[in-house]
């Protein structure tokens, strides 16, 4: 015990510059774990004291149980699906033997989406919304950043739309999509488009603003270098402007992706579009004794995925950026 105390004490303050690797590891791994431990303790303690109409507020163990349950349900559903297809194939094979002209048909499986299916749907939606937003925002930002005229023309609009909540866009998007997107055999479902467009509309702005800022604040000396070299406009943009704006653009993209993920969950909940948001809403409506635990699982999953997305962006940013010092 004394050994532990004497080990912890010097770590109370800042680590000395020549601290051992072990001590660094301790700081990097053990301290966050300790924080997590304290959080779990407080959670268990508080959970036991909150009674809702759906029973006691779930404590960590109940949430873990439901996480395992949700995974098992997913496995079961997959097995059911595999069985469904296997039976169809058997039947088709049998019919083909009797009647060689028979054209085998496979009917798709239509079981309810599992928790993992909802995660995949949400991820696909957020990534396509974010991708569309990026494809729109970066060129737009470059144009605004390069031209004072365009900047003055568009800046008020950007400032106006930037703070608009996704929930305000959603009804408009839904109506427009159902009016415009009419086809008998839609390759992508309308609900997917609704969520995606809402995400795009909301996460466009940070990237536009940052790109414009990065492009317009290129070091004037570098602009002079480009002028002395008589670089063409295209070369000027691709060799001077974009590289020097990349760090700022990526900061914008990171903010955009964070917003996209938050917006998506809200949009899915409100519009009952497939995805994690719908999962939460359905559980809330079901109101079984497990619902709260299952919602907690979703909350943690949403957090973890958001964190993961941010880490991926950060890695990308480090990879393409020449500025080595990045905030974490």
């Amino acid at each position: 015990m004394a050994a532990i105390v004497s080990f912890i004490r010097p770590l109370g303050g800042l680590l000395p510059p020549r601290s051992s690797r072990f001590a660094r590891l301790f700081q990097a791994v053990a301290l966050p774990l300790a924080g997590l431990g304290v959080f779990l303790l407080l959670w268990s303690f508080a959970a036991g004291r909150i009674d809702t109409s759906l029973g006691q507020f779930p404590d960590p163990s109940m949430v873990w149980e439901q996480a395992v349950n949700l995974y098992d349900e997913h496995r079961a559903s997959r097995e059911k699906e595999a069985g469904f297809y296997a039976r169809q194939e058997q039947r088709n094979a049998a019919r083909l033997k009797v009647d060689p002209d028979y054209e085998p048909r496979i009917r798709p499986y239509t079981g309810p989406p599992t928790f993992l299916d909802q995660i995949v749907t949400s991820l696909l939606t957020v990534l396509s919304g974010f991708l569309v937003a990026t494809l729109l925002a970066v060129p737009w930002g470059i144009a605004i950043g390069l031209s004072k005229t365009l900047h003055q023309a568009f800046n008020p609009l950007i400032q106006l739309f930037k703070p608009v909540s996704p929930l305000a866009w959603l009804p408009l998007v839904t109506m427009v999509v159902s009016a415009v997107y009419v086809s008998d055999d839609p390759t992508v479902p309308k609900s997917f488009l609704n969520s995606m467009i809402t995400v795009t509309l909301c996460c466009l702005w940070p990237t536009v603003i940052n790109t414009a800022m990065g492009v317009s604040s290129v070091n004037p000396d570098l602009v002079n270098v480009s002028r002395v070299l008589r670089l063409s406009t295209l070369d000027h943009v691709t060799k001077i402007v974009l590289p020097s704006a990349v760090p700022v653009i990526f900061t914008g993209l990171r903010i955009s992706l964070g917003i996209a993920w938050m917006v998506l969950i809200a949009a899915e909940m409100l519009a009952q579009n497939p995805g994690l948001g719908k999962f939460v809403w359905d559980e809330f409506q079901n109101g079984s004794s497990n619902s709260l635990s299952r919602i907690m699982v979703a909350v943690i999953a949403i957090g973890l995925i958001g964190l993961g997305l941010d880490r991926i962006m950060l890695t990308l940013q480090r990879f393409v950026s020449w500025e080595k010092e990045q905030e974490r």
Partner: protein
Amino acid sequence: MNDAVLELSRVSVEFSTERGPLKVLEDVDLSIRRGEFVSLIGHSGCGKSTVLNCIAGLVSATKGGVILEGREVTEPGPERSVVFQNHSLLPWLSVYDNVALAVNQVFRRTKSKQERAEWIEHNLELVQMTHASHLRPREISGGMAQRVGIARALAMQPKILLMDEPFGALDALTRAHLQDSLMEIHSNLNNTVIMVTHDVDEAVLLSDRIVMMSNGPAANIGQVLDVELPEERDRISLASDDNYNHCRHEVLQFLYEKQRKIETLGASASDQKPEDESLQEVSNY
């Protein structure tokens, strides 16, 4: 004046500012011969950079004009390459690629790929930077970065090399070292150089002529001094050279007696710094 490469004829420059038009230069006349090394010296804010930028084409004259080999200068171009004060290398490119950007742009039609690569290497050798060609600007010292800036400017094979306080941000030792390199390069290549400086010793050591500017606004050329020293100059033996000390004296007299700068209350710290530095050097002697 018939072998003049460059001529400034009655150049006036006026900037429009929030507080109305600001006349920085008025009727600047100057002519530069081929192979000449000319220094521009004057108090901070008098318009030295503006003269240089006018020649570079980065700033256009409100009245009068700059004539290079009989043709008026209207825009920037690589035949008037510039070495900027804070090196201005592209931070995301290696030393080699920084020079390559210039070489590939300027000689994209006239040199083969192989020739261009050799030309890049050659210019890096000239400033003794081949050993660091793979490093990024942030990974090398300020002096080294300034060398690369010079290599990039030389690699454009300019008719005139323009330098705006190229060594202003460097410590005294590094500065002396780079001055020696520059002297050597100039005596080998014999290019025409115009250099802005606020360092009297540097001006006398390097130049064939020193152009002293009067104080702004509406600054002008106050006095031109021919430096009559041998081509090969050595900073240690020069210290006891009468001619050298005479030149120093002339410049100092111009700056601190004829064009004594009246410090206004609003003068910022950065405005005063160059003066203080030069004054320190005066007291050394």
